[in-house]
């Protein structure tokens, strides 16, 4: 809980910084603050407290996911320091990011639909603004506009769902709803299930599952690289955690209504983005599609065993998030995000090329990197619960994935360089080294991460 306070506090602080003009120190302060947040959140380990008569609950599930997003945000701030430096609205941006993080924390730890709703909205509204933060660029405008329009449209469905569920069960409270479902399974009105489905729509939009994913590639491509990085890591983690909480903690006993629908969605989410990505000439957009595709694997993990998948999903998200923050760091340094921008990157900057290669290999799921173990645990779990067919599909799609990831690698090493050599600041070097190392270590010693939530 203190973590939440501290994050919001940092947000206010960065707003004040505009007035007190502490802009110089702000970045450092935020990073230090976030480190402190991590400490605070980890201190709550195994306490599982409920706050404000059960509005939020900080059980281990929340704690690991919050810790994850906070750590990722630290990397994010580290990587995107120059997204703020020297810009106008520097403080506004950092404040919005911090509020977004606060919203993410709520989405992870909510125990009441109101909190879920507010969390989602805080996150979304900040992001609508941030996606458009490159005001002069039409792409940025379009991204934020699309994101806003479709986002609020989806919110409508989510709310309708919440309303119907409320009508059927007479409560917004996750645990109460769950109890009600398990105690009176027979006397639920049909419109309750409609509510569940509508909530599924709303959440599926947030995690960008097919067929509610159309916004993702466009928005990811249009938004500034750093914001895309934030969306494809922190936001995605939060959304999936929320999704998991809603459907595993709350509606798990009503599974038969939504499981089949979710299976269809999973298949679509595995197939469509992975195949679409094959054609991509723009690395940024390709990563967008791949991040949609990864949702498919997470959903596979979820449907194969909805009651205790968190360990798997958590590990997968960690691997995915670290890999993609790495990729986006490189993207951020390369600036030109077309394929041509990556041609001959190895000659322009070996470090960038190698780090990018590692992250792409991890995303493609090549051992011994983290991404491989992530896919492995997912597939293993699915096989164990008799979803062999879906696993086969997953294998095929990940092969397709290999194809489009490796095209980038080949271009980086074989093509003629597309520009002058790239100079890297030492802080970025250390960051990239750290991330690459993390990818490797997580791959070699995945044990404790997986068993955290087992």
């Amino acid at each position, binding site marked *: 809980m203190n973590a939440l306070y501290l994050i919001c506090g940092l947000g206010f602080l960065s707003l004040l910084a505009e007035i007190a003009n502490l802009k110089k120190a702000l970045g450092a302060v935020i990073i230090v603050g976030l480190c402190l947040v991590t400490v605070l959140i980890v201190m709550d380990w195994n306490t599982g407290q409920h706050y404000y008569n059960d509005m939020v609950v900080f059980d281990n599930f929340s704690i690991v996911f919050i810790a994850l997003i906070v750590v990722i945000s630290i990397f994010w701030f580290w990587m995107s320091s120059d997204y703020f430096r020297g810009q106008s609205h520097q403080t506004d941006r950092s404040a919005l990011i911090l509020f977004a993080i606060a919203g993410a924390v709520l989405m992870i730890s909510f125990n009441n639909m109101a909190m879920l709703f507010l969390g989602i909205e805080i996150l979304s509204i900040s992001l609508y603004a941030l996606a458009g933060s490159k005001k002069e660029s039409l792409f940025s405008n379009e991204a934020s506009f699309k994101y806003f329009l479709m986002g609020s449209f989806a919110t409508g469905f989510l709310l309708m769902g919440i309303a119907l569920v409320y009508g059927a069960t007479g409560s917004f409270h996750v645990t109460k709803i769950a109890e009600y479902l398990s105690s009176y399974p027979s006397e639920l009105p049909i419109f309750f299930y409609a509510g569940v489905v509508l909530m*599924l729509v709303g959440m599926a939009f947030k995690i960008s599952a097919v*067929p509610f994913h159309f916004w993702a590639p466009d928005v990811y491509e249009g938004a500034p690289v750093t914001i895309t990085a934030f969306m494809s890591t922190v936001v995605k983690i939060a959304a999936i955690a929320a999704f998991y909480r809603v459907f595993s903690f709350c509606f798990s006993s009503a599974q038969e209504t939504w499981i089949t629908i979710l299976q269809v969605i999973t298949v679509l989410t595995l197939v*469509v983005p992975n195949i679409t990505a*094959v*054609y991509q000439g723009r690395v940024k957009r390709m990563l967008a599609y791949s991040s949609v595709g990864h949702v498919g694997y997470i959903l596979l993990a979820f449907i194969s065993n909805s009651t205790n998948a968190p360990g798997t999903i958590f590990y997968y998200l960690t691997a995915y998030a670290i890999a993609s923050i790495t990729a986006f760091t490189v993207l951020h340094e390369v600036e030109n995000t077309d394929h041509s921008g990556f041609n001959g990157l190895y000659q322009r900057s070996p470090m960038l090329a190698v780090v990018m290669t590692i992250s792409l290999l991890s995303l493609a799921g090549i051992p011994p990197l983290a991404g491989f173990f992530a896919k492995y645990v997912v597939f293993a779990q699915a096989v164990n619960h008799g979803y062999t067919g879906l696993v086969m599909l997953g294998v095929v799609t990940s092969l397709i994935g290999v194809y489009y990831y490796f095209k980038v690698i080949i271009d980086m090493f074989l093509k003629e360089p597309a520009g002058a050599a790239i100079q890297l600041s030492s802080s970025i070097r250390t960051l990239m080294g750290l991330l690459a190392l993390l990818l490797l270590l997580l791959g070699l010693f995945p044990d404790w991460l997986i068993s955290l939530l087992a």
Partner: protein
Amino acid sequence: MVGIEFLIVLVPVLPLLGFLIISLNNKRLSHGVVSFIACGAVLVSFIISVLLFTQLLSQPEDQRFFQVVVMDWISTGDLSINFSFLVDPLSSIMLLIITGVGFLIHVYSIGYMHDDAGFNKFFSYLNLFVFFMLMLVMGSNYLVMFVGWEGVGLCSYLLIGFWFKNQAYNDAANKAFIMNRIGDLGLLLGVILIFMNCGSLNYEEVFAKATSLDTSTITFITILLFVGAMGKSAQIPLYTWLPDAMAGPTPVSALIHAATMVTAGVYMVARNNLLYSLSPISLNLILVIGLATALFAATIALTQNDIKKVLAYSTVSQLGLMFVALGVGAFSSGIFHMATHAFFKALLFLGAGSVIHALQGEQDIRKMGGLKKYLPITYITFFIGVLAISGIPPFAGFFSKDEILAHAFSVNPLVWGVALLASLLTVFYMFRLFFLTFYGSVRAGENVMHHIHESPKSMAVPLILLAVMSVVGGFMNVPEVLWGSAWLNEFLSPVFAQSQTVLVAHELSHSTEYMLMGTVIALTLVVIGIGYSMYVAKDSVPSAEGERIGMLHKLSYHKYFVDEIYDTIVVKPLYWLSGKFDLIIERLAIDRLVNSVGESVVAWSGLFRWFQNGTIGFYIFIMVMGVVAMLLALTIN
């Protein structure tokens, strides 16, 4: 007996050492040293072979064999094969022939090859050949024999293609190796089957078990083995490589393609006499093939104009005769003829060699003639060889051939008839060759005749020695009817003892034998007369290329077009098939299939991306449709 064992091992090892020393110091050694080493090695092993021979004689009848296990080779589970050597009457005879004739030919080569760039290489190959040949005959199990079997094939490949600048020679070499390989596959399969059925590859163990096997198996095995013999001993249908093999230097033709290697098949069948005698079918097969080959090759030889080609076909024909002997169960006669043949055929080849040598490599008998006064030694020795092969008593050929004919007659007069016909043809073409070469007018060009000269000593001496052998060689096995002791049959009898018990022995009365001999000699003389009248009296010369000639003559002149037939029914189809595999199945079918998977994915991707068309209206439309679908799914169930 340690001494003996050591000596036995020494026999093959010496030529091997010779090969190693020469080939590893190819550049450094002078011709003199090389020829000394090479000939020395073979000479010493010849001397040792003689020692072993005497040792063998000193043994009582039933213990006339020494066996040495050098080391184990392939051994795993129930498969255990050693490098082990066996010296018994059969192999000791072979030893003597190989090392003896081999030595003479080595000496001959010193003169013949003296100004060749590849002198050292040549001798290293010769030594290697002798080594493998000795492995072949001394091995006490099938696999060691197979080692020698393929090894000699290799050496023949290397020596046929010795002048590797000439691609035609290389083609001949490849042809020889591959055709031998076909035979070898048969042999290998036979050996494996033997191992399957007898659980071992050692001769005595196999022969011990052999009687207990059922006939069909043995027939199958023996036929497979005989396929090997076909390849190696140039029998129909695998004989075409041997005439081409004349591309090699003449000493090679003498040593490998007349005296020793090509007789390996005969040796192998004789070695497995028990198995063959247990299977009448394969004996008959051998008989038929042998007869056919003898006749067929003889007819071809009639019209050939290349001196070495004629000898080559006569070799094929003589080998056929040996197989006839084996086919009728007269194994020792086969070996006997092999021995005599080794002498006179080597002699003939070396004689031809010295002619060629004298005429700067001219091989066409139409461009020879009247050489009698220029090359007296060659003339004499060659004459002796011709007499020997024609079976004029008392030359070596007479006894061996007569014995075979006698056995043939005892089995079936028809066989006798055919064999006789073949041998008469032999007489004819040999004399044709002889007359055309040494008699009549000189047809060689001026510049050639200008520096024609008799061969040097190193070449003359072997000729003389071989001539002597061709004269006296026959006396090692004079049959009883001619008041002889048939010593060789006696000596070899332990080897063939078992099979003789199996086979029914045909006895001929002495009178018939005299009658047969009489007819044979008479006919031979007649044929010689015809030849004389044609080529000496009329001094007629075979028509040059392109002239019209009779149908049969043409057939025989073009070797019945067998090469062309093989080319069209085997070689071309194989290449055609391979090409089709490569172009159609590989590229268009399998690879296409694999690639099309990837391409289809790309195509789908091209399709899917149109859904991502950037208009919000469309996206929302799809979303709502999704919602509708989901609610519909809900309401339905």
